[in-house]
């Protein structure tokens, strides 16, 4: 497989530039503070009228609008990874709290309240953003991945295979998510997943992740279809997925599933472990997750340089695979492998070759990992243009 990335866009806390972040972009949020979370990584985006009360829809629309040119006559596909937005405070105020009687929800009154101007029906249609944006593009294929934090990466892989197979001529692929609201924070807090201090992947003091939000899109085309005007930002040359089949909350302690995904990606790309020059880790900053990933990377790829962006732009959940791959595209022209923002003291127990600071080196092949709760794993390999 050799699929050209001819355009890319990103919306995340570090902005819209396709370059690896170098500092933490967390800011204070009062709802998060109430739950003991000192900062969140918020993107800047204007609300899109097609997606009222749906911030993740607006993020997707903004990212897609930047790159949405389509060659005449091309069959287009839209492949989006999306996430669970959970109940929002706005829905509570508009739709549930008006029906409290004697300290309980009046379910009969709720059943009779069928007003259509409510946010909840939109929330309960995860494919809606894909459908609305796909219709605007004239897409002949739309597909919505719901694979938790691996969703966007899996969408990109599905899209690349669809272009390679000839299902579509141009694919727009990526992901979008936002859980930056009170109930979103609460959902992660009760799981013990958010850092009560700050995001610091691979650090010996790491204690959870910094939550972020964002969207990113790639335009994918076959090499044979490129015109002289097309600028190739990178080539998707392979990908692999796996399931841990181990535990719904914890990754396999030795990263068995993660290693499987990376091996499958190497096989798909017809590459050897030594061909990979840099690994953009899932690297959330959770104690167990980082350790399992480092074991897997070391086992499959040896001493390859590894770093994570999540201490800077946060964990953008379902969008993470697309956001981080888009940011990785800036590595190729820079000649610099990025460091790990937030990392102060590398955990000596981690076996992988983690980069704390940027180093000058060329990257020919980059492997990007995305792993989700529930054990869904995806590894993508991108080659320099």
């Amino acid at each position, binding site marked *: 497989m050799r699929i050209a990335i001819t355009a890319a866009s990103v919306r995340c806390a570090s902005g819209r530039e396709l370059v690896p972040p170098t500092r933490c972009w967390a800011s204070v949020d009062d*709802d998060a503070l*109430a*739950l*003991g979370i000192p900062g969140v990584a918020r993107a800047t985006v204007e609300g899109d009228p097609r997606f009222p009360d749906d911030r993740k829809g607006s993020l997707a629309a903004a990212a897609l609008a930047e790159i949405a040119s389509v060659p005449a006559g091309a069959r287009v596909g839209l492949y989006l990874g*999306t996430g*669970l937005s*959970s*109940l929002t405070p706005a829905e*509570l*105020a508009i739709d549930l*709290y008006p029906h409290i009687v004697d*300290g*309980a*929800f009046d*379910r*009969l*009154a*709720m*059943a*009779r309240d*069928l007003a*259509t101007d409510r946010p*909840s*029906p939109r*929330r*309960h*249609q*995860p*494919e809606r953003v*894909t459908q609305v944006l796909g219709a605007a593009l004239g897409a002949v294929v739309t*597909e*919505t*991945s*719901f*694979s*938790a934090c691996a*969703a966007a990466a899996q969408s990109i892989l599905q899209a690349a295979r669809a272009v390679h197979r000839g299902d579509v001529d141009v694919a727009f692929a990526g992901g979008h998510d936002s859980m930056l609201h*009170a109930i979103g924070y*609460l*959902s*992660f*807090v*009760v*799981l013990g997943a958010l850092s009560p201090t700050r995001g610091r992947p691979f650090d010996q003091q790491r204690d959870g992740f910094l939550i972020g939000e964002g969207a990113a899109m790639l335009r994918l085309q076959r090499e044979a279809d490129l015109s002289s005007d097309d600028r190739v930002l990178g080539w998707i040359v392979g990908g692999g*997925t*796996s*399931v*841990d*089949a*181990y535990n*719904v*909350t914890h990754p396999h302690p030795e990263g068995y*599933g993660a290693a*499987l995904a990376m091996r499958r990606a190497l096989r*798909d790309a017809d590459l050897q472990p030594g061909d990979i020059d840099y690994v953009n880790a899932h690297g959330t900053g959770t104690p167990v997750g980082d350790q399992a990933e480092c074991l897997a990377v070391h086992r499959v790829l040896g001493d390859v340089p590894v770093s994570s962006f999540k201490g800077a732009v946060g964990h953008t959940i379902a969008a993470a695979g697309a956001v981080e791959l888009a940011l990785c595209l800036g590595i190729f022209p820079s000649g610099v492998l990025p460091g790990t923002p937030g990392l102060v003291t590398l955990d000596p127990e981690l076996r992988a070759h983690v980069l704390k600071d940027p180093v000058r080196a060329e990257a020919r092949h980059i492997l990007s990992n995305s792993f*989700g*709760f*529930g*054990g*869904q794993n995806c590894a993508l390999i991108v080659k320099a243009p």
Partner: protein
Amino acid sequence: MSRILGIGIVTPLGDDVEAVLSAVREGRSGLSAQPALDGLPDSRAGVVSGPDLAGWLTRKKDGRLLARAARLALPAAGRALRALPPGVAEDTAIYVAVGREPPDDPEAEPSLLAMEVDGVLNRERLGGRGRELYPPLLPLRTLPNMVLAHVSIRHGLRGENGTFAGAATAGVQAIRAACLAVDEGRAPFALAGAAFSGVDLASARDRLRVGLTAPPGEAAVFILVGPGEPLRWDPRDWIAAMGDCGPVAGLWGLL
């Protein structure tokens, strides 16, 4: 091309393929009045009896982690996988379609109520009583990919995978992805299916608000595909018998 090697279903009309097929041909309805939907214009829904999870849970306490769709999926997937040869689970692919996001569990209500002051969420209550009462397992039950997670854990499936969201088309996308995994040589076998439950007040109300007036339903259908003859299917409209089962509807034709 792929061929169907195994099938498992859990429906309001039972879990035996031949019996369900006959029931639909005879025009028998699986719909019944549901007290949970009282107050709606139509309180009927297609509800599965049970399901009996004996034999499908690795540990009995795992039942607490299962949302309704996952409860339907486990037996359906397990029956389809009876045709899986031994020793190939590691590379067997799994593609699953799920419906709209799972409903907000009634278990969260004490927390949500505790956070309310004057009709809005109160920040101090959020960090206090609301946090204390919020069910810690709720996010794990309602994550959309948990159907796939539970099936893969129960059966040791570690192959390529995906969870698709959407209405009836998502089930077909899952089947297509599974067949392509086999046809293109990335997996020796692939499990594909869909699981959905829309029989709760929040979901039923949301459906009516977006103009979906067919009674809600719940079901799971899984197939195991492997190398062989072309996959052929002819979907039919079973909604009158089963209720609208979202992504599962795209799979009725397989029966």
